[in-house]
């Protein structure tokens, strides 16, 4: 990846401070890209079928109540959602980052997911697949993205979504550039364009994610009133509870050599074990 000098962009200075210089796109103070948008993985529920939940316990601890009606994202990254729940409910495990887990912490997350799997959830990989499952009432509660909630609510489905009290996993997207790109200037202009109020508003409103600057929020207000408030775009406190997707690493992504963490490959294999048996 090519290092990016953010000073050359007209629109970079407007970007929210808590989106800048994050570990997923900055190494030793050097930026390798610019933010595009961010969002949380939400807990969705059918208002006709269940009371409003406040915690992930509705699928983890009390999953049996909704056996057969739980919607779960079909990817190994979902292990982090279980780890985040354990971070809150079992502080003894000492989980700090739900993506960097020691073997013991990882095993606890897998045990929790096996309990969830025993409640016969419906796994979704494709978001249209999940929309039809919520719309038809096949599932009543489970994980989702803001995009599906937007589309379901636009169709009048009785679906609401919350950010549970434990916080949640989420994503923060970055535009990056290949170090041997043939036309780097073209990409740099694209990056600046995508941070511009108009373009960023359009892109983030369509996808249902948080815009990246106050100016983009103003532009978004015209496209979809209340967009930035609903997506917590400028609410730095909100984003402190969101754990952005990142790669599980053997080094635990820290300087400490004493601990080793479970790697991405083992995450995928553990997920296959849960799903395949």
């Amino acid at each position, binding site marked *: 990846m090519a290092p990016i000098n953010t000073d050359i962009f007209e629109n970079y200075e407007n970007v929210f401070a808590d989106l800048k210089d994050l570990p997923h796109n900055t190494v030793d103070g050097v930026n390798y890209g610019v933010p595009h948008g961010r969002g949380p993985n939400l807990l969705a529920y059918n208002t006709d079928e269940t009371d409003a939940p406040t915690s992930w316990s509705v699928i983890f601890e009390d999953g049996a109540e909704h056996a057969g009606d739980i919607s779960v994202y*079909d990817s*190994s990254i979902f292990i982090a959602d279980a780890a985040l729940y354990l971070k809150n409910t079992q502080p003894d495990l000492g989980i700090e980052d739900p993506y960097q887990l020691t073997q013991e912490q990882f095993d606890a997350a897998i045990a929790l997911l096996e309990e969830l799997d025993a409640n016969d959830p*419906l796994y979704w990989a494709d978001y249209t697949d999940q929309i*039809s*499952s919520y719309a038809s009432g096949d599932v009543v509660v489970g994980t989702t993205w803001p995009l599906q909630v937007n589309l379901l609510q636009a169709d009048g489905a009785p679906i609401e979504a919350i950010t549970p009290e434990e916080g949640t996993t989420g994503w923060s997207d970055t535009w990056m550039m290949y170090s041997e790109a043939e036309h780097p200037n073209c990409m740099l202009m694209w990056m600046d364009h995508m941070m511009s109020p108009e373009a960023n508003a359009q892109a983030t409103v369509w996808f249902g994610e948080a815009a990246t600057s106050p100016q983009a929020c103003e532009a978004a207000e015209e496209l979809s009133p209340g967009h930035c408030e609903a997506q917590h775009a400028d609410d730095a406190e909100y984003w402190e509870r969101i754990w952005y997707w990142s790669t599980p690493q053997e080094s635990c992504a820290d300087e400490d050599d004493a601990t080793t963490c479970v790697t*991405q490959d083992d995450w*995928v*294999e553990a997920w*296959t074990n849960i799903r395949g*048996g």
Partner: protein
Amino acid sequence: MTTTAVPPEGIRPPDGRLRRTAAWLHAHPGAQVRLLLAGPVGWMVIAYIGSLFILLLGAFWEKDAFTGQVEPFAWSLDAFDSLISNDVYRTIALRTIGIAVAVTLTDAILAFPIAYFMARVASPRTRGILIVAILLPLWAAYLVKVYAWRAILQGNGILEWMLTPFGIDAPGLGQLLNSWVVLSYLWLPYMILPIYAGLERIPESLLEASADLGARNGTTFRRVVLPIVFPALVAGSIFTFSLTLGDYITPDLVSDAKFIGNVIYDNSSLGNLPLAAAFSLVPIVIMIGYLLVARRLGAFESL
């Protein structure tokens, strides 16, 4: 007075080099064939087999644990180790093969009467209508058909609406059986057409001769029709079996049970590419074995 006849432009024999080449080619028919086939065969070997070969080579390479990038020529059997040491891959492989066998048997049983009716009973007009009816679904996109099946199987779907009055709970999405039903539906035409072609080839006189020699209908079917049409049945089964073995979208959309293809997909997007490559060897080896047996049974003459 004599004039030299000058042939009109266009039918003049080609000059020097072209003419020599043409003459040489005429004298060497083998070279002609080779030149003709060089393009398509080259494409086949380089683009088709070559890319497959590189994919399979990846099964023997190591990968970087963080970036997930495969390190070419770093030889390792790690992928096969994890494939063998973890039972879940065997379970998934056996599940996939089991459904492929079930789909093949189901399609054979469903296809035979239809093909027989088309080939030996129906009037030419009815036969034409039936052929169109069988081919028509092939024009609709695969995904559209699978989503149509979701509409049947899901909650508040057609199946639930039909079963509820009888007090039966609809199974809903997430059942392995859904994959069996939907894949049997999807590949049925590929079974009907070869059997139909095989049945049509049986001369009427053979059946008459069988009857003249005192065979009842059942005996004629068992000892005359079935042996002749069996290679066609095997030919159809190549399609139903291999298409099921490689499918991963239908299992994902109508059921929750992973097939070999789902594991390959999961590992190629996020995880372990060498493992995905190693696992993809399983259906390839099965299909090579299947095709060898099919050839012995004469299926290739019925394609």
